[in-house]
């Protein structure tokens, strides 16, 4: 334990020791992942919990047909119609809905819908946001000004309303499906990527190495691709993970308002909750509880993952594991100790307790050296 902590600990100004050929090749990736390996305490717990929940969610989504006892839109099986609003029982573990659907099956298939929409929405908004941000930040000029204005307006808009309006209009054009839902969520998140990428592109543009590249006659596309992209992209994973949870929440919100995916096309947790409002008023709990818990778990997974990543990567709140330096004990003192019958107090090397952390919060210094 202490041994690994010692070797993986960043020492200001020193690179990881002993680069193997493979290590050299993946140095960028390793440098990127290093803070994750060094995570400890709360961020580590959050990363792990979030990771496990997210993995379970993905598994459920992929294996939905194997896990779910029935199809998401089945109201009968083998000629037997399912009970209407049936209590949880052996044949229907989570009970049945007012439309005779099996709640468990809908919850399981809902994971698939949520994940599909989430991935599409995050990828769409990421591509568009990063692209527009790079363009605006690097090219500047009137394009930048117009884009900033539009993005600010989009950002100021209540995000759910934006998704509602987008969904409302898109469903008029291409109908209500997974892609429609994803697109209406996409528009909400473009501004976030745009802002982050634009501002880092703006500052990266002024760096000496970019100026040098320009002076050597590199084309703008080369500069953007080779020099800006890598610097600008670093904060994106954290935002993307945070947005993933948000996207699931927005999808459920849309579904709850009856504006999301049509119920015949896919199982959607938000829609199921909307159908459960009347059940709740008459005291039925299972139609609301299970889809709701599924939403909470899904969002929780991505949020924990994002929070953990943020804690690990954000230099202003990151705190590193404190590793106490082991100094050679002066011989004279040692003899004194021995004389006092005290067997040397240098055993504990990991000063892992929180109190020690408050005094040394110098995590930023080595990182600034890394960034260049």
């Amino acid at each position, binding site marked *: 334990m202490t041994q690994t902590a010692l070797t993986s600990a960043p020492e200001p100004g020193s690179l990881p020791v002993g680069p193997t050929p493979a290590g050299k090749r993946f140095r960028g990736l390793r440098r990127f992942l290093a803070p994750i390996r060094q995570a400890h*305490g*709360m961020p580590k717990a959050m990363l792990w919990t979030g990771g496990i929940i997210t993995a379970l969610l993905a598994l459920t989504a992929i294996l939905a047909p194997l896990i779910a006892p029935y199809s998401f839109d089945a109201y009968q099986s083998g000629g037997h119609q399912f009970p209407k609003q049936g209590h949880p029982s052996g044949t229907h573990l989570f009970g049945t809905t007012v439309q005779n659907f099996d709640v468990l099956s809908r919850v399981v298939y809902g994971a698939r819908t949520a994940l599909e929409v989430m991935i599409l929405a995050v990828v769409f908004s990421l591509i568009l946001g990063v692209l527009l941000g790079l363009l605006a930040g690097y090219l500047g000029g009137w394009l930048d000004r117009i884009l900033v*204005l*539009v993005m*600010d*307006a*989009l950002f*100021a*808009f*209540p*995000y*759910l*309303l934006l998704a*509602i*309006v*987008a969904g*409302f*209009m*898109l469903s*008029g*054009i291409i109908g209500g499906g997974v892609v429609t839902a994803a697109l209406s969520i996409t528009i909400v998140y473009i501004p976030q990527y745009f802002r982050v990428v634009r501002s880092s592109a703006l500052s990266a543009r002024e760096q000496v190495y970019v100026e040098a590249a320009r002076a050597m006659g590199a084309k703008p596309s080369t500069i953007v691709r080779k020099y800006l992209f890598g610097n600008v992209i670093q904060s994106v994973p954290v935002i993307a993970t945070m947005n993933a*949870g948000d996207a699931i*929440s927005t999808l*459920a*919100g849309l579904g*709850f*308002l*009856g*504006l999301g995916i049509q119920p015949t096309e896919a199982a959607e947790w*938000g829609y199921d*909750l*909307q159908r*459960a*409002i009347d059940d*709740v*008023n*008459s*005291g039925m*709990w299972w139609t*609301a*509880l299970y889809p*709701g818990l599924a*939403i*909470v778990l899904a*969002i*929780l997974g991505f*949020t*924990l993952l994002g*929070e953990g990543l943020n804690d690990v990567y954000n230099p*202003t*709140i990151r705190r590193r594991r404190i590793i106490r330096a082991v100094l050679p004990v002066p011989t004279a003192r040692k003899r004194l100790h021995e004389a006092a019958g005290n067997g040397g107090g240098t055993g504990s090397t990991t000063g892992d307790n*929180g109190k020690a*952390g*408050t005094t040394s*919060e110098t995590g930023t210094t080595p990182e600034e050296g890394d960034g260049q």
Partner: protein
Amino acid sequence: MSKQSGSLRRYVLTRIGLAVPMVLILLVLVFVLMRVAPGDPISAAQGGHLTPAQLAQKRHQAGFDKPLILQFWEYLRSVLTLNFGTTISDGRSVSSIIVQNGGVTLTLAVGAVVVALGLGVPLGLLAGRYRDSAGDTVTRVFAIVTYATPVFFLGLLAQLLFSSHLGWLPSSGQADTLVQLNVPTKTHILLLDALISGQWDAVWNIFQHYLLPWITLGLLIVGVFIRMIRINLIQTLQGDYVEAARARGIKESDVVVKHAFRNSLVPVVTVLGLQIAMLLGGAVLTEKTFNLSGLGSMLINYINSRDYIAVQGLVTFFALVVVVISMLIDFINALIDPRVRY
């Protein structure tokens, strides 16, 4: 002193000047968004029920046969006169909807903010002060869980527990029907009307109805408050002046309470401003969950009847509210924190 107020006035004027293009862009955005769909709003809303001649007449009435630029001008005018157009499906003016149903949304939002502040400020300060303690961990987990729980699911759970199961609180509506009928309408804000007319039973009834929605919506935004205040306090406590205060030998409790707390609370106002958009979105969902007939419910109703004018008007109003409130927040910020003014 006079110089200071002068800079404040200049700040306010600059800020208003900056808001104008923002509003214009927002209006263009709403206008364009509402016209992305093919066909025109009238046939979308009432295509099935009317003859082509009637349709054409309706279209003409609403001005949808005019060129787009003229339509935009009409739209701008309706916004500037705060009329926001007349709905297609039931012929009400959007402004009258805002007056009559806005009270519910306002009551809901204000109560939620009170809940969020009352809970978020102390929890955030405690979590930041005792960083990495068990309490800090619990508070952070609480913040994340409230953030992860959709407001409508929380609302349904609250209804299940407190209404269906325990029977303590009503589950929907903003008051009993009899109460609603007996309170004379003055401000269109039921709670305020009941207070004005001094009907304490009615006030109590309305309070009971709003309690669950307030808490539900308040918990939606409390997580952000906790997180922001916690991080702010942590960063404030690392400031030089805190270090200096400690070096002068001031008691740690005094350092935290007198020096750090106040400064770490300045951003609360900013956070509140940023949360307004989330609050409005959450209000739509909360209204739907608790069957409150506020602006959010109206918006959803009009969306379901595909009433473009009503949707356009209400969405515009929401957008304006956000812009105006964030402007007011900036003013308050400038007032309490001189560093903001420029």
